[in-house]
């Protein structure tokens, strides 16, 4: 992506940013995150359809933040994540510049996060047909069948926490599972403990998850854990209205609006 490389070089040369976060060729047919600090490294930057990792997961990392102002090559899901992170006071215009990549693969630069938000709001978060079908299938099951489905799916999970590491929203310096006084979620990988971890993860992402599938893509066992967050997305929409990450701080789950449907209370 010539434009991106050129722009990255300009930004680094003028010291407008200290690091540009993008993708490079990884081992095999995979891409991986690249942190460009020197102009000459910018030539390694690539962008193509394989670049699906959510780079927003890096902007909250201490090691990256410490370098100074960051620029990030951001696809639509990455931009959504950034807006959500900004609404949670994790990034701002002073420490992050967004080099947007439109769904048509064009480079688009934003002066500030408000512009990013405006751009992001042109697109609704839609669950793809294959996953929708899966959600419908799960919804039609009896609760016992559904329970068995999840116990079986989650049984092989050995809690590598790759899902957590890949998720831009899992930036907490102390995750609930790391909280050990008391240890609400057990550490070992057990049938119940696995369920507890994944249910907790889905709950904590409700009203925040922008449905980028990074967790599923990162899972070495390809457990469809993204179905849990997708289900929460659907439920949250039903009860509290449509979800779009927003700088207004009107978080779906923590704010009350008079037009919240709250059908579950009646």
């Amino acid at each position, binding site marked *: 992506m010539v434009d991106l490389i050129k722009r990255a070089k300009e930004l680094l040369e003028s010291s407008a940013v200290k690091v540009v976060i993008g993708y490079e060729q990884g081992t095999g047919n995979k891409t991986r995150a690249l942190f460009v600090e020197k102009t000459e490294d910018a030539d390694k930057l690539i962008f193509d359809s394989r670049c699906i990792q959510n780079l927003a997961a890096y902007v909250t990392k201490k090691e990256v933040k410490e370098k100074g102002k960051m620029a990030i090559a951001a696809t639509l899901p990455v931009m959504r994540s950034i807006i959500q992170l900004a609404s*949670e*006071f*994790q990034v701002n215009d002073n420490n992050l510049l967004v080099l947007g990549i439109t769904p048509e693969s064009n480079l688009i630069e934003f002066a500030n996060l408000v512009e990013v938000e405006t751009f992001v709001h042109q697109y609704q978060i839609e669950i793809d047909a294959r996953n929708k079908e899966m959600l419908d299938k799960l919804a039609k099951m009896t609760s016992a069948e559904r329970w068995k489905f999840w116990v079986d799916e989650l049984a092989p999970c050995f809690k590598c926490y790759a899902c957590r590491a890949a998720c831009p929203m899992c*930036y*907490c*310096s*102390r*995750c*609930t599972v790391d*909280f050990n*006084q*008391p240890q*609400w979620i057990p550490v070992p990988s057990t049938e119940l403990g696995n369920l507890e971890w994944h249910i907790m993860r889905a709950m*904590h992402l409700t009203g925040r998850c922008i449905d980028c599938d990074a967790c599923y893509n990162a899972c070495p066992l390809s457990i469809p854990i993204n179905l849990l967050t997708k289900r929460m997305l659907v439920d949250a929409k039903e009860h509290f209205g449509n979800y779009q990450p927003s700088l207004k*701080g*009107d*978080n779906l*789950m*923590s*704010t*009350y609006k*008079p037009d919240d449907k709250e059908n579950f209370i009646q």
Partner: protein
Amino acid sequence: MSKIGVFVCHCGENISATVDCAKVAETAGTYDGVAFSVDYKYMCSDPGQNIIKNAIKEKGLTGVVVASCSPRMHEPTFRKACAEAGLNPFMCEMANLREHCSWVHEKNEATTEKAIDLVRILVEKVKYNHSLNEIKVPVTKTALVIGGGIAGIQASLDIANTGHKVILIERDPSIGGHMSQLSETFPTLDCSQCILTPRMVEVAQHPNITLYTYAELESLEGFIGNFKAKIRRKSKSIDEKLCTGCGQCTTKCPVKKIPSEFNEGLGKRTAIYVPFPQAVPNKPVIDRGNCTYYIKGKCKVCEIVCPTGAIRFDQEDQIMEVEVGAIVVATGFTVKQPDFFPEYGYGKYADVITGLQFERLASASGPTLGEIRRPSDGKIPEKIVFLACAGSRDPAKGIPYCSKICCMYIAKHAMLYQHKVHGGKSYVFYMDIRAGGKQYEEFVRRAIEDDGVNYIRGRVSKIYEKNGKLIVSGADTLLNAMPVEIEADMVVLATAGVANEGAEELAQKMHISYDPYKFFAEAHPKLKPVETNTAGIFLAGACQAPRDIPESVAMASGAAVKVAGLFSQDELTREPIIAVVNRQAPPVYSSCVGCFLCVSACPYQAIEKEEIKNRNGEVIKLVAKVNPGLCQGCGTCVAFCRTKSIDIQGYTHEQMYTEVMALLNEY
């Protein structure tokens, strides 16, 4: 090592009838860390409390579990006993063996087992209890009274007379409320305005009362003793300091055909107006919706005639912020209009009027100067029908409750009619006559026996017009539901008293609860009739339920004494059961990541952002901080915090976890 004392109460027979208290005490005695365990007939009695105190002193107890009734009942008692024996009162926990066990289960082994479980949970919890100290918060000794009807007036005067400052706000241009509209009052038939206006003037002149008319509550923050209220002072379009109330503007205003709210639409007023001659303050306001200048951009007659140059067309609404310690809500009620009743003509018959309109007709200051004349043609009605329970006590209309005041004012109306129209005939359709109250029944009997009002027990199914008469068709249920038809000249509907428009919105602004009919909810229907569930906010008058004048006044005085009681203290003591965001050693400082979702989740606006700075004053970290004065300990933030950085003192994660594990683990 903990030394815990377990004190199992029999509560007379309340607990011991179904729970084997001796066994509970004996089992509890075997738990790790329990140093003393005993059962006793009445733990809350003096000898019972002495058992606790002596055990604390003699055994050196570090924690106490009292297994008895609900903590709502006796937690203060037992905490005080512990404190007197030298133990921090928050080291005392209560296991509710009565409401949660003995009262709801039958006598058998399982009931005793449950009681043992309940005790064990608390024994394990109390091991993790910490000494806590009560929180002191200052009290702002100024009261805000919302609504300037008789209830608001009475409450304001009573509070002001105790020496405390009062801010009284009223949404209309004058105080007085519905009482100022009434002609005479039951059961003594004294003139309403004659007894009210001196009170209104007293309010205006009282050195401790600041009166803002044409003002509404914009928003409310804070908590008991420390509220911050924003008041919107709607623009009156006049400079009140310059205006002398001479009335030139109101006489010269060319827009003269606006239905007068004070006269319930039976009279007219001008666009710049004083609602009624005895208004307080007696200064006009411009009704911008009807003023020619605001609609068409020219006129300004009032500005031309004003001798002091007091008209201010460009005046804007002012938002004022005041700090108050207590609030009395006295926003009153309203009545249903005839258009609510399809069976009585949807409000299309001019001579079918409401009780409040009849008050204006009967009032000497009303549009007819006190003569009873029909609104349609000004004729004196020869036959008049009064309908009680128009809407009230009618579940089909969504108003199943009794509006309470109608039986009495209808008797008064009929009586006034008979006094004013000699030879006139009056009829009252009623369901029951509810005349409970001092001299009330006598008053109704007087109407029937001395003044010859015809009372017909039954309801009216239909009113329709025929040959210039209103045909009232109903049934007399005392004559076997015999159909009755009366050709009346005028009909008065005692329409249901309902909550004011905007009552729901106001309640939400103040975080007070309300009933299904939007009347504000008292904290307890019998024992806390003037309190709300929000500490520091009190109710007076008909905003809580339909009320007559004596009741409204009594309620207002009741609310006032609650306010005065609150203001008699310089500081309030609050339980330290509040949320706390953790602090850790550097370089972490706190596990809080500063997402501040708790800030928006907090229903009490109690969470703020705190900057953690290094020695050079540079901000290292931004974290959440709970204001202990505002926090109510609801725990919403705790549930919301992903990093588990917030704990409720006395209900920490550790304590909750321990309680759950105590239940799950086998002993």
